């Protein structure tokens, strides 16, 4: 297991280099230099100051040297300073928002699993029943539904028409004065809609996938054997079939990480949630290149970590992987 883990970790290194290289290239597609970006917006900056900035960023060096220097700083999580008026380090800005985005995404992953697995199993147990048909219709809606439209519909219904749930931010204005119980309630009310929206897209894919693997497993010989032994259908489905059908789900979980992180841009900006996605959206709007680059790298690293976790999880439950 340890050997497997080390091997997996070593494989990550070239990927990390690749990720930073792509991010670097993307930002350097920009017409003009970051210095011009900062100075043309601010006519008070003298030519001499411009030159100093250029040297600071190493812009007088060839591109490859620039990349090397940038990479050296990135390894220490130094992405430079944001262009925004507060001029804070990019990493500080991302760090304080990372937790929110990760917790919300974990929560929606949990909901996806909690809903999609029973849905998939039930429709696989009774293929072509009315339940299976209803789920299939739901799945097609899930695949085609633009998440931001779903968000708007939910806001209209629960936020405006029924006026049950708050539709923006994580907490109410008077949050600090609440008791602990009130705080929990307030937070829960605020994140209900965003988490639902984030989960919805993955729900369709996951339940479809679960149905597929379950159908395949049920056809296997050992299921027939289990039934022939006279085990109850309950035991056969939940003990023999489900356990095996759950294996590939781990991989799908890992693969769904980039979608979730990418999707957070949309639901966080609609619901005004101070997470990574909203920060990224703001950075794109303001052409805050250091911040954009930092977010791009962090987003990809999170994906890489998600895949690593999925692979390790798979190796833990399936001995064929870690020895093979």
């Amino acid at each position, binding site marked *: 297991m340890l050997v497997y883990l080390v091997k997996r970790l070593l494989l990550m290194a*070239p990927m990390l280099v690749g990720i930073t290289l792509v991010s670097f290239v993307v930002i350097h*597609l920009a017409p003009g230099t970051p210095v011009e970006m900062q100075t043309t917006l601010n006519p008070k900056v003298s030519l001499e100051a411009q030159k100093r900035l250029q040297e600071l960023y190493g812009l007088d060096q060839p591109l490859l040297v620039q990349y090397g220097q940038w990479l050296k700083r990135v390894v220490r999580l130094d992405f430079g300073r944001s262009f925004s008026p507060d001029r804070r380090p990019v990493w500080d800005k991302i760090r304080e928002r990372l937790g929110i985005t990760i917790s919300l995404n974990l929560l929606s992953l949990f909901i996806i699993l909690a809903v999609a697995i029973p849905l998939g199993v039930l429709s696989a147990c009774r293929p072509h029943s009315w339940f299976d048909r209803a789920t299939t219709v739901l799945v097609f809606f899930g695949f085609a539904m633009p998440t931001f439209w779903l968000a708007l519909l939910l806001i209209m219904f629960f936020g405006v028409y029924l006026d049950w749930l708050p539709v923006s931010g994580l907490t109410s204005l008077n949050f600090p004065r609440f008791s602990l119980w009130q705080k929990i309630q307030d937070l829960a009310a605020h994140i209900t809609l965003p988490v639902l929206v984030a989960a919805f897209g993955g729900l369709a894919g996951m339940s479809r996938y679960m149905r597929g693997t379950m159908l395949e497993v049920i056809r296997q010989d050992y299921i027939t054997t289990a039934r022939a032994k006279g085990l109850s259908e309950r035991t056969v489905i939940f003990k023999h079939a489900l356990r095996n059908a759950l294996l590939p789900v781990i991989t799908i979980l890992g693969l769904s990480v980039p979608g979730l992180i990418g999707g957070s841009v949309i639901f966080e900006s609609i619901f005004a949630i101070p997470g990574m996605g909203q920060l990224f959206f703001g950075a794109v709007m303001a052409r805050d290149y250091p911040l954009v680059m930092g977010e791009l790298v962090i987003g990809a690293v999170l994906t890489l970590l998600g895949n690593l976790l999925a692979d390790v999880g798979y190796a833990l439950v399936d001995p064929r992987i870690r020895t093979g």
Partner: protein
Amino acid sequence: MKKRRFWARFRRNRLAMTGLIMVAASFVISLAAPWLAPYDPNHIDLQAVLLPPCAEHWWGTDPLGRDVLSRIIFGSQVSLKVGFVSVGLATLIGLLVGSLAGFYGGWVDYLLMRLVDLMLCFPSFFLILAVIAVLEPSIWNIMVVIGFTSWMGVARLVRAEFLSLREREFVVAARALGASDLRLIFVHLLPNALAPVMVSATLGVAGAILTESALSFLGLGVQPPTPSWGNILTAGKDNIEIAWWLSFFPGLAILLTVMSYNFLGEGIREAVDPRLKD
């Protein structure tokens, strides 16, 4: 797969036919937009601001008094263009990378597949947004960016097909007869690998339409006054408490269009899948 058998199976598939009819309808709507739309989509009428659906404006009007139905009809042109151009680009890149990797194998294959892994590491929406931040948001840039960030699936498909076809008798025979690499790729291998590519391209159009509408919704896509479903929804969000029709109808248009391509794609998959019996 013989063409006639494909048609026979395709026509018997209800999902596929529904999809095909819906896709055809969306084509007709966007091509005939100037005749179908009751109003000029950019005609501003400050006497008719934010009207709810009524006899003159079936789907209401927006904050500038423009007819929402007409804007949605013209918006279908944007979706169609973005869907087809970006998927065309993605498919071309995917075919190229996949055939090179699958045909030559070895280090070419290794390098290209690591590039695919690398691209798949980025949350694609992040990558798209970053490029849009650097370039100007415009319909052309969006098509190119979506194309360049969504070719990986096709590349993997084509590579897998090539790997399984490469050693088959008809390819070995053609090679023995002295066929050049190009001839082998284009005449013998590619035509046999096209079925799964067709499925993924059809589903890809749906994905591209969703991505474009999300970008336009965020204000980073098609810029007003050009109508697109996404940017009508932006106005819907800004007026969510007073004008439900601004949010409801464009979203419905996206949902139906995306669904029709998904139906069509799944239908083609069922029609070409040899594991499913006639």
